[in-house]
């Protein structure tokens, strides 16, 4: 396995690089899913974040968000959720149009994907991105989630509303929701 010397760091880098290469070269959907899941799990360890950044894995995850394969989206979103905790990865994701891509995942049918998206949006909140993240449409979505039957969705949405926006913003979003005739299209996840 890993060598017991200073080249261990580069061994790790090479291994991650092999994974990325396999992902790009293989035609097998199944293999792609496995590798993607591996990368997303590696992204959970802060020691790998720099290596993954160098390998442009944040962009790889962002690309997955527009894929048809629901597993690709779920794993990619999970990877972003893990990576976005690191400030430098967060900035890379923001530069790559992350907020918009992640927001689209709020309407995903899979609960896990939605949960990862909410957490990622919270991680992506910076003084400069706050305005975009607390867009009324997103707040309304979170308000609906906070009434969901799913306890995890409820809790996460509640944390988002409490931590990322002011009470005035939430109140305004609530008023706008009541003023609308029909629910504006962000459906709750089905699974």
């Amino acid at each position, binding site marked *: *396995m*890993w060598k*017991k010397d*200073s080249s*261990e*760091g580069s061994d790790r880098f090479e*291994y991650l690089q*092999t*994974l990325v290469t*396999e992902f790009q070269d293989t035609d097998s959907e*199944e*293999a792609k*899913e*496995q*590798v993607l*899941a*591996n*990368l*997303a*799990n*590696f*992204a*959970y*360890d*802060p*020691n*790998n*974040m*720099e290596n993954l950044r160098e390998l442009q894995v944040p962009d790889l995850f962002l690309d997955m968000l527009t894929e048809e394969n629901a*597993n690709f989206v*779920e*794993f990619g979103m*999970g*990877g972003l*959720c*893990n990576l976005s*905790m*690191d*400030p*430098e990865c967060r900035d890379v994701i923001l530069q790559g149009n992350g907020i918009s891509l992640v927001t689209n995942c709020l309407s995903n049918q899979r*609960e*896990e994907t939605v*949960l*990862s998206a909410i*957490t990622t949006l*919270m*991680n992506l909140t910076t003084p400069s991105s706050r305005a975009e993240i607390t867009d009324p449409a997103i707040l309304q979505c979170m308000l609906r989630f906070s009434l969901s*039957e*799913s*306890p*995890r969705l*409820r*809790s*996460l949405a*509640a*944390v988002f509303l*409490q*931590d990322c926006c002011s009470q005035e913003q939430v109140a305004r979003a609530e008023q706008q929701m009541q003023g609308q005739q029909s629910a504006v299209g962000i459906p709750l996840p089905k*699974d």
Partner: protein
Amino acid sequence: MAAPRNNNSSCWGVPDVYKHHEQKKICISRPKYRDGRRDRAVKVYTINLESNYLMIQGVPAIGVMTELIQLCALYGAVEEYRPLDEYPAEEFTEVYLVKFQKLTSARAAKRRMDEKSFYGGLLHVCYVPEYETVEDTRLKLQDRRRYIIRAVRNKAREKEQKEAVNEKPTSSEKATTSETVIARYEKTVVPDNTGNTSNICHYSGFPLLPFPPQEYHYYRHGNPHRTIPTEDKMGTLHNAIIDTKRLEPQSSSSCQASLDKDRGTEQRLTLNQAPAAVRFVPRTTHLENRKRRMEEAADHSLTDVTINNEPLIGPKLPEPPKLDMEDVSLNTTANLIRNTLKKVESVPDLKPVEKKVKPRRRI
């Protein structure tokens, strides 16, 4: 996912069966280079999936709840627990909900207890984050963020130090110049450091007993440059935490503080020689040194031993054991091994071992 049966958000309400409780099928099609040590399903872990609440299924219904909770308590303090009678369970088995004080304890318990035999039954352990309150969730996310930022910062600092050290000439193992000694000593003190790998190898030679909960582990488990891989090839770090817990940063911050204060003093230098050299000593020699030190330990006070031989100084125990290896389970193990060796070596010796040393358990 089954439709939730109620909107009760209290953790003591009727439980719902969720998809993430189910065990997914193991993936068998992985190429060898990225196949792990254990069979695993294809699954991604995020902070949302993890929780300090665990659900344990498959517990034989023979009245072993106490034993089960005692087992859980080996991995960390248990705040609450109760049987989940309403949750669908196989015949003759019970399901329990256990709330740990810390996420790291839950992680370790899940890793160690999942798929393990318990009184004849096979346990299935999973996280149940749906039992968290809003506050639980918020704290969980905050802790995670803080840990990441700190780990990243440590890594950056360590990288800088490594680059600084690499610029200096280092030909022999024994420290000859004061600057080199200080540099290495710093390195062995700083947590998450390559210099500690020899210590880690050494720890890995011991059987992996569960150990008492340690306060600082949550912020330290992501250590780089370990010889014990923190993840397997599939990136499942969360299943490998327990191996890395052996490294006790403990009061490494206090170590560092004292180091900074004493830097450059001669006395510190002489003390530093041993730990600095430790970095390059092959594993077996390190073990032998340890044995020798243990035998000599009776002549030294606890403080001397720790300062002279180990860069890491653990919290002082109220009654320090006679032979200290700075870890309760290691002490126990060392005693057990020593007793067994004594028995084996002295065949004609018919004196029975007076007291069987039991691994200490905390409930």
